[in-house]
Structure formats: C-alpha cells, structure tokens
C-alpha cells in the first residue's frame, strides 16, 4: 500500500539539544500510527514537523512527504487536509462551544450553513450537544478535550494528528475518546498519535514507534513488539526481603532476572517455570505473575530511570 506520510532521516536541533535524530517512518492510509516515548523523547517535535509548526534541520538527505506535499513548502495544503489536536486545550475562553467551532470553520472556509450542520454532527458525535451554548470555563477537562478533537475534525480531515489526546483524563472519557478514534479509523481517517500510556497505544495503534532521546529505538505491530522484545510472563516480587539471596540466584537458566530497587522481576515464556520458582522460595500471595505488556517492553527499551 502507498504511504500517506513518508519521513526519512529527519533531524531537529535546538541550540545544543538534539530533539529528533535521524528519524524515519512511514504511515499507511487508514492506519493508526502511535509514537511512544518518555517526556522529552521528541514525539511532539516529530508531530510538529509534519504539520509545519516546527521546521526540520536542513539536511540534503531528509525527506518529509505528507499527501505528496513537503511541509517546508506546502504547509497550507497539509494543514487543510489534516486535523491537529495539540497537547494544550487552546480554546477561546471567552466564547461558547459553538462559537469556538464556528471560528475554526472560517479558517477552513466552510460555508456557514454547512458549518452549522457539521458542528451539530460533531457535538453529537462527542456527546457535547447539551453543552453547545456553554462557555469554555464551564466545561470539564474531558469536555474541553473532546471539543478540541471535534474542532480538529471540522474539515473532515484525511489525517488526524493527536498529541497526547487523553493525558490527565478520567477512564470514562479515555474510553469514549478511544471509541471515537476507532470509529474515525473505520471511516478511513489516518491517525497519528503520541502517548505515554501503553494501554492506549495497545488499544488503538496498528503500528507503534518507540522513541527515546530523539531516536527511534523500536517499531512494529504491538503484538510483534511484545513477541520480539520480551518474554511472555513476568513474576514480580514487591517485597524483596522475603526472598533470600541464594534463592534469588537460584532461578533457572530460562528465567531472566531484573533487579531494580525494591522490586525483583523474573521473566520467562513458560508460566509454570515462574510458578514453580516462586512457590519454591516463598508463600503465595507475596508475588504476582502476569502477562508482560507494552509497558515492560517500553521500560526495558528506555530504562527505568526518569528522563525529564
């Protein structure tokens, strides 16, 4: 399939900080492509380069192609075909919900009567209809977020860029937003998403790219990332004192041990091996055995220390 976004070898430096280094990826139409990474990994910068809010370093080998346009020359065409949800809810506080959307419909040159229909549809879609005449100040965080997403959808974009769409929202709103993103995908909207919620990436994305310190460190389908990069199960012991030193090292060869402050983790593809090991050195109830998830892959790839 032909890609809707092709990015090759892009770099972005701010003075002495290299925000993005040698990043390449391509996005297929209709897919949901997720950028995962700790704070400051360069996810947002990569998004901004795509819609022209940020200019990439001028290197001859760098390519950015979105719908056949290069944002360095054709930002207007790209923005016209895309909807962008930035990290901050930059709504006009003095206006009400409908007025906020009407202003943006002008930016896209949508005829007023058509805009009204579209706004009605979008407010309905995001379950905001009864708030249509509310001031922005009266909205909760989740409502504002839904409104910002609705605003990005005014021009029926082919590409929806979501920069941490659910950060700080309660579970109900997160699930609602996920549901809407899935619906949009069914309508063939391509979605580009950044997040540091692993479950969000797992739920929504067909393809995930893990970034760290400006670089791509891993990419692939979510299940593929799990299969390739981590054992199927993990045994976690939160009370390290419960297990004696010789017992700690007693673990068999096909168990990988990760010793981080306060927590011991034993990884294996065979759940029974972990179970036997755990039972041999402590009482049940003092440990947890679970399936590994994307968070384990992520932490293994980016390390457990803070990155801020």
């Amino acid at each position: 399939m032909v890609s809707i976004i092709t990015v090759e070898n892009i770099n972005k430096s701010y003075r002495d900080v290299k925000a993005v280094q040698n990043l390449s990826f391509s996005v297929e139409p209709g897919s949901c492509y997720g950028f995962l990474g700790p704070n400051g990994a360069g996810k947002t910068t990569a998004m901004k380069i795509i819609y022209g809010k940020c200019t990439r370093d001028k290197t001859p080998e760098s390519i950015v192609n979105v719908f056949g346009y290069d944002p360095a020359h054709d930002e207007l065409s790209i923005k016209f075909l895309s909807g962008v949800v930035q990290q901050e809810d930059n709504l006009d506080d003095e206006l009400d919900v409908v007025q906020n959307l009407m202003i943006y419909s002008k930016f896209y040159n949508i005829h007023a009567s058509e805009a009204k229909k579209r706004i009605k549809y979008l407010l309905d879609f995001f379950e905001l209809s009864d708030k249509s005449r509310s001031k922005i100040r009266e909205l909760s965080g989740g409502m504002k977020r839904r409104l910002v997403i609705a605003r990005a959808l005014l021009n029926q974009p082919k590409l929806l860029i979501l920069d941490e769409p659910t950060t700080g929202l309660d579970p109900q709103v997160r699930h609602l937003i996920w549901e809407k993103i899935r619906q949009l995908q069914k309508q063939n909207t391509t979605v580009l998403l950044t997040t540091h919620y692993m479950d969000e990436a797992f739920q929504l994305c067909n393809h995930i790219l893990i970034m760290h310190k400006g670089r791509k460190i891993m990419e692939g389908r979510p299940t593929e990332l799990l299969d390739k990069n981590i054992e199927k199960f993990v045994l976690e012991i939160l009370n390290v004192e419960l297990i004696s030193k010789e017992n700690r090292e007693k673990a068999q060869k096909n168990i990988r041990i990760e010793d981080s402050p306060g927590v011991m983790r034993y990884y294996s593809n065979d759940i029974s091996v972990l179970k036997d090991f755990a039972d041999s050195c402590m009482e049940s109830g003092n440990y947890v055995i679970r399936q590994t998830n994307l968070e384990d892959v992520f932490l293994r790839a980016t390390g457990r220390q803070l990155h801020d």
Partner: protein
Amino acid sequence: MTEVKTLRYPPLYIRLYSVWFRHMRVYTQNLLSNGFPPFLEPLIFLAGVGMGLGGYITDKIDGVPYIEYLGTGLLVTTAMFTSAFECSYGTYIRLEFEKVYDGMLAAPMTVNNLIVGEMIWAGTKGFFFTFAVLCVLSIFKIILIPYGLLAPFVGFLTGLMFASFSLLVTSFVKNINHFNFYFTGFISPMFFFSGVVFPIENLPDYIRPAAEMVPLTHSVRLVRAICTNSYKPILLLDMIYIVFFIMIFGYFAIKRLKKRLVS
C-alpha cells in the same frame, strides 16, 4: 500517492479575513464593556476641558480654539492607545498564556497570515475608536461634518502603525511586565510631544527632530488637516512616512514573531 481532495486551501483574503473574524467575534462578545468606553472617553475629555482646563487657555492655537485643537488630536491618540494595547498585552496573552496562536496555526494559515490579520484587526479597532471620538465631538460641533468623516481612515492607519511597532516590541518581550517600559517610556511621552496637546513648533530646537521622528506626529498632522480642511504639501511626506513605517516595522515584526511561533 493516495487520492487527495481536489479542494484547495482557502485563498489569502479568506485566511486574513478569518483571523480578523476571530478577533472581531471575541471583541464583540463583550459588546457593552468593549464598545461603550470609546464613546465615554471623549465625553470625559469634553467635560474636563470644557468645565476646567479650557478656561485657562483662551488663546487660539494654530487658528483654532484649544478644545478643537486638543479634540482633533484625541481622534488619533485613541487609535494609538487601543492598537498599542491590542498588539502588546493582547498579543502576548494570546501568544504565551492562552496559546490561541498555536491552535490557529494548526489550521490552514501561515504565521504571515496570522500577523497581518492581527495588524488589520488593530487597524480596524483604530478606525472604530476614532469614529467613536468623531461621533461625540461632531455632536458638540467641535469637529465639523463632512470634513471629519475621513478621520477614521487616519485612525485605521494609526492603528496599523502602532500594531506593527507594538508587535515588534512584543517579539522581544519575555515577561508581560516589560510592557510597562514600552508604555511609560514610549507611548505616553508621544501623547505629550507629538503635537496633540501643544504644537511641536513650541519644542526646543534640539527636541523638535525627535518629535518629527515618532509616528504619532504624522497621524496628528494628517487628521488635523482633514478636520480643518486645510491640506498642505507636507502631508504627502506624512503619508509616505506612515506607509513606510507600517511596511518596515511590520516586516520585522513578522520576521521575529515567526521565530517564536515556528520553532
């Protein structure tokens, strides 16, 4: 490449209009508190000069009574103040606190469009504020209609001048309190030394060139000529000054703000 909508992004004039529309919409949202004071201000001025100050100044200035002299100047100072405030505090708040521009720049719009739209809006406010003063002063027969009807256009140009300059100042500002220097050090002195309150001919010779260099002097000369219907060749120089001022400072304002808006 995949199939792309055949529709094109909006043409330039629509993009500029949409920025203007955004500001207009926000401004008219509080119609009473935004629209009423421009009419109240000249009334206060009239009361102050008419009941008090005017009694001390019985001589004519440049052949007109003092209330008319000061009143015509007020036509453009009001445009100066509204535009300078809009494009300093207003712009800074939209830029740094509300992040309104970030959202707008995600729509099909360039930084140039955004800033030029901003300037046109400030010009419009200048037009409206001058118009408000004109309404009040013409009711009291201080400015004569129809001559004065052109004054709002000078208000528009004044608005553009102070928009471009204030935007350039804003591009340097990292802390909103720094605007205090701009207003106390530049805008307020201009009110007193640009021929609004007294003729600049009365200034000492060594200060006079400075008065000729600042923008308000040229707006004042233009608007007075219009209100008194006495056109002189020097006005052509004033017009040229105004046009160049807008273009040069507007250019640098856009250039510098672009660095702040697109990283």
